[in-house]
């Protein structure tokens, strides 16, 4: 087993190949540019400010569930961030 360890030549793979990363970056740039076209006026934001429309949900409850899931699988990240609801002007 030690011999196998010392002579190993195979390398672990990179996280993401370069081409998909470029594609993701391009998609984000195009989408961000198009976001300026979205015109939801402040007086139309009542529903967006509703608690059911918050991506982060109830933060304590969500954190507890993510804590369990992170210990039951290898994936990590991509959790909700705050945003999606503000009725303010």
């Amino acid at each position, binding site marked *: 087993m030690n011999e196998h*360890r010392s002579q190993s030549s195979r390398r*672990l793979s990179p996280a993401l190949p370069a081409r998909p990363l470029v594609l993701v970056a391009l998609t984000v740039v195009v989408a961000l540019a198009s976001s300026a076209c979205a015109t939801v006026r402040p007086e139309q934001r009542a529903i967006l400010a509703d608690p059911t429309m918050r991506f982060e949900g*109830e933060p304590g409850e969500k954190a507890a569930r993510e804590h369990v*899931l992170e210990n*039951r699988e290898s*994936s990590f990240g991509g959790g909700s*961030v705050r945003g999606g609801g503000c009725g303010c002007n």
Partner: protein
Amino acid sequence: MQLRRAVGLSLGLGFSALALARPSFAEVVAADVRTTVLFEPSETSHLLVVTPGADVAVKPVDFLDVHVGYEADIVTGATEAVKSGPVADVITTATAFDDTRHVFKGGFTFERKSTHVTANYAYGMEHDYRSQAISVSAGSEFFQKNTELEISYARGFDKVCTTAYTGATGPSARTRLDSSDGCFTSAPDRAERDIDIDVFQAGWTQAWTPVLSTQLVLTGSLQHGFLENPYRGVVITPAGLDALENQPDNRARGALAVRANYFIKPISAAATVGARLYRDTWDILGQTYEAQFEQYVGPAIRVLAHGRYYTQTGALFWSNDYTGGEPRYGPRGQYWTGDRELSPLSSVLLGGRVLVGFQGNPGSRLLGALLRFQASGGFDLLKTNLKDFTWGGVNPDDTTSMIVSAAIHAEF
């Protein structure tokens, strides 16, 4: 005994948080008290984790939020300490254990018009693990608040207790911990190993119409140090010799998640769908698909149902049996693990929650004191399908998890 302790701790936290939250000088004081119970039934390796927690937040001025919190993980169970493949002369038995993790945290948020900055610190301790984490995040809104961008960075400085092997000890000669006795003391048969964790995250939330918004989140993480379980041994020879797990010291992880929220006006309900793609340098590819539906049942009651499907490939060095048959110079010869979360698996989660909430206002407080009050209770069932993992050739029976949660939120 552990459960009684957990219930006592939960009640204590609740009363303390509510007592601390009585308004005396601050504009708004918010208190959260919650408890989550995770139970995994099994004939040999059951697990019970009770997680009580409490947070108190104060807004002394309208642009500043200061918050502190406490959380505990009270763990009781039994687990197999040595992972073997289907080797006839190795008998796998479960060892009972219990431990309590305490986490103390605090931080503040500055919020002005369209911008917010948050900084947090957390310190965690248990018999065999110490952790410190700092995190900072900043966000801003653009285009009449229809676009929100947020970036964050977190850094973890963790220490884990292991047996006192040195750099000169070959991985196959390293032994696993049999208990946490002597950890974080000067005991000669114990050592501390570092784990450094960096997490970078960027999020973009976009309102497209008065009832539709989307979110895109990109996360990158770097881990360096002792990433094994110090208690777990793996059988690495046909004769049944086991050694401490041996995994790479570095791991880079990336995740991209997209989700969309749509409000269905005629039935006063919000529907959410989401997907996440995960990849890391241990060659694990994970995919997550989620759906959620939350509906108002009267003005004060919300009912939520959600489902989640997850699937992942195994790590490049994963094997159910390290005792032979693997490529001589391959990653399974260099590394070995008994971590079933590194094996190919899939899981399904189904659950729901009921929330009751009441909203007052400064001129008409609920019960003369509360600006807002809500209570919720939830239940989740998680079923995991291990495609390749066995304990000595036997499929584990602890693959069903039940999660029960209860929470109270009050603002004064």
